[in-house]
């Protein structure tokens, strides 16, 4: 029983990370109607920046904050420089650009930092908190950080004028222009926020999976599954999906299919959701008149 509780709790910890990355995917999907395949590599690259800062002697939390700001800027720059010029290009062209971004960020990181696996520090104590045997301090801390990020995002989108403007742009860019919203900047800011959330996810997962340029491949797959499960256009659904996928992955891995086949949980989920309920559990069913 103890082992089972442990599996569920550490599933929640990685689930929170999938939830963050899934949320980043949804944020970009809502404005572009496309899944950003480079989301994981943007997070990975940002995590390397954090590693550099910490190695240069900076404290963990200042480095954390600086990395989040760096990721925000990275997202904005990628949107303005790479995505903006192809705004009206056919879907496939943009997908190819996403894949190119993925490959470029991955190889650039390998080139700058080498492909050797590095350890990444955790800001939380080594000993489990309160002497519990179920969950490590880092896992507990990661859940906490994830929840804080999600709460901040909720407050931002729900209660600030800027957040309202971004939601407006996501659903009706033309009307947004007509109330004076600078739509282009809102799109760029959306990319920035998604990248920043991804960076937090990267820094939280790195102590668990270690730092290497390919660290995000599997994680992005789980995040896809989470986003699809919740409904690709539903931020709340993506978050719930993330936690569900995290727990499922751990429990199935430990008791049913074994650790080696864990990743197939994500693939199985993706196929299952697309077959049975393509809009996910919380997404809207889109009906188009033809």
């Amino acid at each position: 029983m103890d082992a089972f509780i442990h599996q569920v709790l550490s599933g929640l910890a990685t689930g929170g990370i999938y939830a963050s990355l899934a949320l980043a995917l949804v944020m970009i999907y809502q404005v572009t109607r496309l899944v950003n395949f480079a989301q994981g590599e943007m997070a990975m690259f940002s995590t390397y920046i954090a590693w550099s800062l910490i190695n240069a002697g900076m404290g963990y939390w200042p480095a954390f904050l600086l990395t989040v700001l760096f990721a925000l800027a990275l997202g904005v720059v990628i949107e303005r420089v790479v995505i903006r010029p192809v705004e009206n290009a056919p879907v496939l062209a943009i997908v190819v650009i996403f894949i190119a971004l993925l490959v470029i960020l991955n190889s650039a990181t390998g080139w700058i930092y080498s492909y050797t696996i590095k350890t990444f520090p955790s800001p939380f104590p080594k000993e489990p908190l309160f002497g519990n045997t179920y969950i490590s301090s880092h896992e507990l801390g990661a859940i906490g950080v994830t929840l804080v990020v999600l709460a901040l995002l909720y407050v931002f989108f729900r209660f600030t004028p800027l957040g309202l403007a971004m939601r407006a742009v996501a659903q009706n860019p033309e009307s947004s222009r007509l109330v004076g919203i600078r739509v282009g900047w809102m799109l760029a800011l959306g990319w920035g926020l998604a990248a920043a959330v991804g960076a937090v996810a990267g820094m939280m997962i790195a102590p668990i999976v270690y730092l290497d340029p390919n660290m995000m491949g599997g994680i992005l797959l789980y995040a896809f599954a989470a986003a699809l499960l919740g409904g690709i256009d539903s931020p709340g659904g993506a978050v719930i999906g993330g936690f569900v996928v995290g727990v499922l992955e751990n429990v199935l891995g430990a008791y049913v299919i074994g650790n080696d086949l864990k990743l197939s949980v994500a693939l199985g989920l993706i196929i299952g959701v697309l077959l049975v309920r393509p809009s996910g559990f919380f997404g809207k069913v889109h009906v188009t008149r033809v």
Partner: protein
Amino acid sequence: MALLEARGLRASYGPTRVLHGIDFAIDEGSITAVLGANGAGKTTTLRALCGMVKTEGDVRFGGARIDGRLTEDIVRLGIAHVPDGRGTFVNLTTEENLRLGAYTRKDRAAVESDLERIFTYFPRLKERLRQQAGTLSGGEQQMLAVSRALMLRPKLLLLDEPSFGLAPLLVRELFEIMRTVNQRERVSILLVEQNAAMALDLANRAYLIETGRVVLSGAADEIRRDDAVRRSYLGY
């Protein structure tokens, strides 16, 4: 001096030219109606003023050129546009729709009092404040679209077919409110309408557009008395 003046305004969708060089002026504090049949270019005229289509020609607002500028910059100068199809943010609440109208304003206290004033025009919106705007009836969404535009505190209000899809009684009410807004708040109005009789009742001046050209213009009373207009657009 004219508040807004367009000279040789042309507009195209891709290779198809829709406006072939129209001239018109809107006096400060006036209500100007643009009349015409379906496909004459009325909606395009409004869209051209806001930079929502590719245009050529010269448009001045308060003396300054605005042609070729971004829609959001034109709006920030004080031109509010109630678009064709109402432009409701369907997944946001009525209140959020209204607050978006005041997005560019910094005078918070005045925004709150403007909200209250709008509820005196459209009490129905106050009842629907927390409701998703997409669930409002067509008439309510039209009221919402007009209110959202007024929340900008515009100098000029562009109205695209405000009577579209509304019950006759509601249309009359809406037009009365437009008259009040024009007189009490000194908002100039450019009104595009198919309901020519009502538009001419409300307007001071009118322009008649056919296939992208102004074919007739003048004081609303004169236009109403024009034989051709009476037969084709007023139906008696």
